[in-house]
């Protein structure tokens, strides 16, 4: 990703909008008793579009803002979303995305990873209460929501950040092909 001042402003605006939408809308909407979490999907999309550094930095920033607004111990959200962004970026750098199913699938898997990460962090910081088995249901439903929300989020962000994206040649010599996932 080519980072100009305009693109950085867009990235900041995307981050702010995502956090505010999450806290004021998605967290307060219940479908099948579970609220969607779009932040991991946003970070995954940024990682897929910009690579490891963009993913990691945007994950850290979104997590930091989230922790600030929720008055939670700072650093927890940053650590989890940083890992999510970095993993998405690493995927982009290692594999080619041939199938349109890859971004939503990755959003689904990494949202599950993020929720497990938040859970692990909460347990490490000392949850002194019983944990309901309904947590598993909520985790799975959140991941499914991420699958369906991941695709429009990815497309929207790709459109917004198009001027900064490094276009890769469509046809490559056979010998130079990189491994791909879910595609020929």
């Amino acid at each position: 990703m080519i980072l100009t001042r305009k693109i950085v402003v867009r990235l900041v605006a995307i981050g702010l909008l995502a956090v505010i939408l999450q806290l004021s809308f998605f967290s307060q909407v219940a479908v099948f008793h579970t609220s969607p979490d779009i932040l991991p999907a946003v970070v995954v999309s940024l990682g897929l579009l910009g690579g490891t550094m963009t993913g990691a930095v945007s994950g850290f920033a979104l997590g930091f803002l989230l922790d600030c607004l929720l008055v939670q111990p700072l650093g927890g959200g940053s650590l989890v979303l940083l890992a999510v962004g970095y993993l998405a970026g690493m995927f982009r750098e290692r594999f080619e995305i041939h199938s349109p199913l890859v971004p939503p699938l990755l959003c689904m898997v990494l949202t599950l990873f993020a929720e497990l990460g938040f859970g692990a962090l909460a347990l490490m910081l000392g949850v002194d209460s019983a944990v309901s088995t309904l947590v598993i249901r909520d985790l799975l439903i959140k991941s499914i929501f991420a699958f369906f929300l991941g695709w429009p989020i990815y497309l929207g962000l790709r459109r917004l950040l198009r001027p900064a994206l490094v276009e890769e040649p469509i046809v490559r010599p056979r010998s130079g092909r990189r491994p791909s996932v879910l595609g020929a």
Partner: protein
Amino acid sequence: MYRKQVRRRRAVLALLVVGSFALLTITYGQGSNGVQRGVSTIFSPVQSVADRALKPARDLINWFDKTFDARGKESRLQSELEVARKQAVGVKAALAENAQLRKLVQLDRGGAIPGGYQPVTGRVIARSPTIWFADVTVDVGSGDGVKLNDPVINGDGLIGTVSAVTPGSSQVALIADNSSAVSAKVVPVGVQGVVKPNVGDPGDLILDFIDSAKHVHRGQVVVTAGWRGQGIDSRFPPNIPIGEISRASLEEQEAQQQVHVRPYADLRELDLIQVLTGGWRG
């Protein structure tokens, strides 16, 4: 050149990871700090506007969820209504007796909110996205008289306590949050215990540490105990409804000294709340 780039990337990544751990270590257990107060102060008006603007869309989606839910609840509610009708007769008699007793001991405070407390009405403007923390942000803060640890209620009963305050907003740790513990009693039997969350299921709380010799039953009401001792008091005023016993097996009561409580307040869908400011506190 490539190696330099890789080295720089690794350095940034290491810096971010170390930064996260450092922030976590420094700020853990401190409540709110200056950075969080500043960010909350800047963002709470924006969140408030976004909350109001997005309310119609949110209500629409929640309406679909409630419609699906209502179909399953209809039959259960009908059977509960029959039980409630029978109980209402007994409650009326108890209320009359209670009014007389209150007059006798001059405890009549004339409402559900205990005397000395000033309710400040607010609206939920944000909510934690993860299932591990049950926190909400409300649009009233220290500027409205809200203080740390103030109890928070809604029309149905207790919902939590204020866990952090900024001038324009407050953070409320719900009774379903993993940090919550509320001293409570079962009425009319008077069994006391601590209401703790069952993380991940805000519709199921646990009344823990109860006296296993006294048995409680399904349907009995759980209210705040609101005890006062010498130099140490409960954070909650007495007799605020929390919920009712939903499961109370003898095995669980005797072996684990706990029963399950269904909160009156729907902790998944909160809108208007009241912070009880003033009053006595520990």
